């Protein structure tokens, strides 16, 4: 009763990073609320996964293990989450804002008539006073998300309905094992009790998952290009420079939309959130939606021919010039001066 649940998503047979991020955050929220954190893992051949969930802060791990659940499909996963929540009555339930969480979350919230906030970038515990009703709610989940195309930040609450549900964007929360070794309780979900045969009317007939070679989240240095880079060919310079200094190449939404870079390189609210020690923004003007995804970088260098570009307001160094002039110079002087 009244605990915090994280519905964990699997990737290649292990718990996905987004779910570990949620468990890390969920641990802190559960401590503030004075409740337990429980993880729900649905799939097949789950034995051993509980250990990882404990390491990241779960107190209880529910395993719903069944051969029919090997691949995610909406209906049986919904039945399991809905029935388990009816039984356990959690106060908070978190999912990743991935195609998994954004497919499952709304279905579950509709069945339970509980509120769901999509794509949160921060979660806090706080109180709320409804002045009209003269009522104060304590220990609510404050669900903070960009809205209106990223131009405003809204704080959403679900005062009267439980579980308070939220999906959270990948990469905005840190993923950290608990300092002390932990273990907890493993509980088996009786799948046949929760799932109905008619839940299996959708079948996955083919899956092609491409292992992305791009690791923006883990990169210490990111060279990121925007629309101002001008072309896909000019992006080649960024790749050369990145290879030289051991960096990863990122891109703004405008550059991705223009076809200069692949979608998995996109940084910003509709992309990955990064916090490298150095972020070099090339030809990026710095729209809100981009800055929100990189503002925590330790150092920002902007290369832009417009001194008034918004990116320069959060930059440590602003180089006034064209990307195609500046990057070759950076390459040259890096080569000359490193060892």
């Amino acid at each position: 009763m009244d605990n915090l649940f994280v519905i964990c998503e699997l990737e290649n047979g292990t718990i996905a990073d987004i779910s570990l991020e949620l468990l890390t955050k969920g641990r802190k929220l559960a401590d503030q609320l004075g409740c337990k954190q429980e993880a729900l893992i649905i799939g097949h051949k789950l034995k051993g996964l509980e250990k990882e969930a404990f390491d990241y802060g779960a107190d209880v791990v529910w395993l719903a293990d069944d051969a029919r659940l090997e691949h995610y499909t909406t209906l049986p996963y919904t039945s399991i989450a809905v029935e388990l929540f009816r039984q356990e009555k959690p106060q908070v339930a978190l999912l990743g804002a991935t195609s998994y969480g954004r497919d499952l979350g709304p279905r579950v919230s509709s069945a339970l008539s509980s509120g769901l906030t999509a794509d949160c970038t921060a979660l806090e515990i706080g109180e709320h006073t409804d002045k009209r009703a003269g009522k104060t709610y304590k220990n609510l989940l404050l669900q903070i998300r960009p809205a209106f195309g990223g131009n405003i930040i809204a704080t959403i609450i679900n005062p009267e309905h439980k579980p308070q549900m939220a999906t959270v964007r990948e990469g905005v929360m840190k993923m950290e094992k608990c300092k002390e070794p932990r273990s907890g309780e493993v509980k088996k979900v009786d799948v046949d009790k929760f799932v109905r045969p008619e839940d299996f009317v959708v079948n996955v007939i083919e899956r092609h998952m491409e292992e992305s070679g791009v690791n923006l989240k883990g990169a210490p240095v990111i060279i990121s290009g925007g629309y101002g880079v001008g072309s896909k060919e000019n992006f080649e310079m960024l790749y050369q420079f990145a290879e030289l200094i051991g960096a990863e190449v990122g891109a703004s939404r405008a550059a991705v939309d223009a076809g200069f870079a692949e979608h998995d390189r996109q940084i910003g609210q509709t992309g990955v959130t990064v916090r490298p020690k150095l972020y070099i923004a090339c030809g990026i003007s710095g729209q809100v939606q981009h800055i929100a995804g990189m503002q925590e970088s330790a150092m920002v260098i902007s290369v832009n021919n417009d001194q008034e570009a918004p990116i320069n307001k959060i930059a440590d160094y602003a180089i006034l010039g064209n990307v195609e002039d500046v990057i070759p110079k950076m390459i040259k002087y890096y080569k000359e001066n490193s060892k």
Partner: protein
Amino acid sequence: MKNFKIIVLAKQVPDTRNVGKDAMKEDGTVNRAVLPAIFNPEDLNALEQALRIKDKYPGSTVTLLTMGPPRAAEIIREGLYRGADNGYLLTDRAFAGSDTLATSYALSRAIMKIGDFDFILAGRQAIDGDTAQVGPQVAEKLGVPQVTYAEEIVDIKKNKAVVRRRLEKGVETVESVFPLLITVTGTAPACRPRNAKLIMKYKRATTISERQNVSEDYIFMYDDRPFLNLPEWNVGDIEAEPERLGLSGSPTKVKKVENVVFQAKEAKVLEADNQSIEWLMKELISNHTLG
């Protein structure tokens, strides 16, 4: 040959993709009045998928359903110009303030009133809220399966549809029985343009509220040509429970809205000359930021 009944859920949204400075008020809220109202982009992708089913299976019907203020009738006309057969506007002050749950309840009631369907198609998400919740919540309320993030309806077999989904890291093809709700992503083919003949046919299609302003001379048309009459439904028409609509039917509340403010820094401005860039690279190397 089989034909299908298709309902397309569409929303009129402010164009949030190009929010200029004048669109933000002093208090950090958005001045919707200055933003153009458009057909939600992914709903157009959904409409295209519906029209392709109709192309392939003549005799199929495409019905638009939208909920919004009276002016949202504009997007029903937009849909008719592109090949939809008819459309319903759901409008009532009681819907104001609805979150996704209350919205999906109202839409599901309207769909029940429309009647039988084989497919409901909708955009994956709308650009004003970006939640992607209404589609799945409507499916749950109607008790039908859902396929989200669809890029193409590949095939329709006897009693199953084959749909290709575009996920973050790849593609997945699923097979589902129907009736079925499908949400379509922006990577799906763009919607066909308006058709000149259909514009001629439907340009005077209006809802009863819009017709208040139509001159007497034209009123006779709506008796002769019933297709010019765009049905408009309110809470009573869809037999919805009022407490499940609007603010009272919405579990989520907006506690606070803020403008996005970033911690401004004083950037050191460098010219793009050799000397400055060499200095910067040396600096980055010596403080171990690089190398």
